[in-house]
């Protein structure tokens, strides 16, 4: 904005014009640059808006896919438990019945029945494990906090990595979708600790703070590179990030050889707890 006559001197006027031109360009208020021979259209703003809109659409789609996957998992878990579980129990009982009917002289048959019975027991255990992996029943029955406690215990049992869980939300009631998302993030984070971190200790913390619910999973391992954190093929990390963003939260992951890996998820309280206003 400039006067072409005094009170500004010519130089001051030119400077002011230049400043305004820079401001207009910086704040993306320019549509076209007019040259002596060409007019160049500048469509940065529009491109940025399009990008933002596609990103939002993609996020909404991811959120939908995550929820669809959870529902699908729940259905498969129920089918496995009800159909396979029942069938295997019947099979097990049938084998026991046959075993009781066999005479001491039918020893080879008895051994065969015992072996089949053991296989059936193993199958039943596997089905139970798969079903609980697909849909942790304990999440429905006991709630998020106890599930995470049990997850930490199981993780320590399976991997030998010392794992502790800390929270100040023991009595809180979580929204179903938030509980599932947090549980899945912890599961994925612990899988990464076991597979990649070379850690001897891991810590899970779920803390309610004024600015939101903070979930952190830390370890004392070798840390993680920036390339891995933002890599397109780091599907586990992408999944965790998308789950956090779908709840309106933030996701950060970083660390180094001396500090280990630090994963932090912050979710607005209104999206986590039942009874908090939206």
């Amino acid at each position, binding site marked *: *904005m*400039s*006067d*072409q*006559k005094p009170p500004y001197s010519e130089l001051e006027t030119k400077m002011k*014009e230049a400043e*305004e*031109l820079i*401001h*207009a*360009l910086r*704040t*993306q*208020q*320019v*549509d*076209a*640059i*007019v040259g*002596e021979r060409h*007019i160049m*259209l500048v*469509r940065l*703003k*529009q491109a940025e808006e399009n990008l933002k809109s596609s990103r939002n659409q993609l996020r909404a789609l991811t959120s939908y896919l995550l929820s669809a996957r959870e529902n699908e998992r729940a259905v498969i878990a129920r089918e496995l438990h009800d159909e396979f579980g029942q069938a295997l129990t019947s099979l097990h009982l049938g084998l026991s019945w046959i075993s009781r009917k066999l005479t001491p002289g039918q020893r080879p048959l008895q051994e065969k029945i015992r072996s089949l019975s053991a296989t059936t027991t193993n199958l039943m255990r596997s089905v139970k494990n798969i079903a609980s992996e697909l849909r942790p029943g304990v999440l429905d029955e006991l709630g998020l906090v106890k599930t995470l406690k049990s997850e930490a215990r199981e993780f320590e049992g399976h991997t030998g990595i010392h794992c502790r869980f800390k929270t100040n939300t023991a009595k809180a009631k979580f929204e179903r979708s938030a509980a599932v998302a947090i549980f899945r993030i912890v599961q994925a984070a612990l899988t990464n600790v076991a597979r990649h971190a070379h850690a001897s200790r891991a810590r899970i913390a779920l803390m309610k703070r004024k600015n939101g619910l903070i979930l952190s999973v830390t370890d004392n391992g070798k840390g993680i590179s920036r390339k891995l954190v933002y890599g397109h093929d780091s599907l586990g990390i992408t999944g965790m990030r998308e789950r956090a963003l779908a709840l309106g939260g933030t996701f950060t992951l970083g660390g180094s050889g001396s500090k280990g890996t630090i994963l932090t998820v912050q979710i607005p309280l209104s999206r986590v707890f039942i009874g908090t206003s939206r």
Partner: protein
Amino acid sequence: MKARKRERRRYAKPRRETYVFRLFVAGNESNSSQARENLARLCEKHIKGRYKIDVVDVLKDAASAHKNKVLVTPTLILIKPLPKVTVLGNLNDTRQVLAALRLNGDER
């Protein structure tokens, strides 16, 4: 003395004059459309019935832009009353635009 009087007349707060604007735009690009709407709105609110807006589309009339030393669009030039004022951008910042065009306090 005469010179001071002339100066005072030249920079005196404009009263009841007709405002003549020339707005340089690039077709219906986002900022250009915003500038068009913002200018019309401001004029209607502050100098209703006392303004004339000449819109120049640089995509159709590049020579005019070049002649007026317009480097980017949207560019608004207040032709009358003097002194001439040039405002760049989409004119979204109402307060700043009104101040630049000397329209603040001219709500009649």
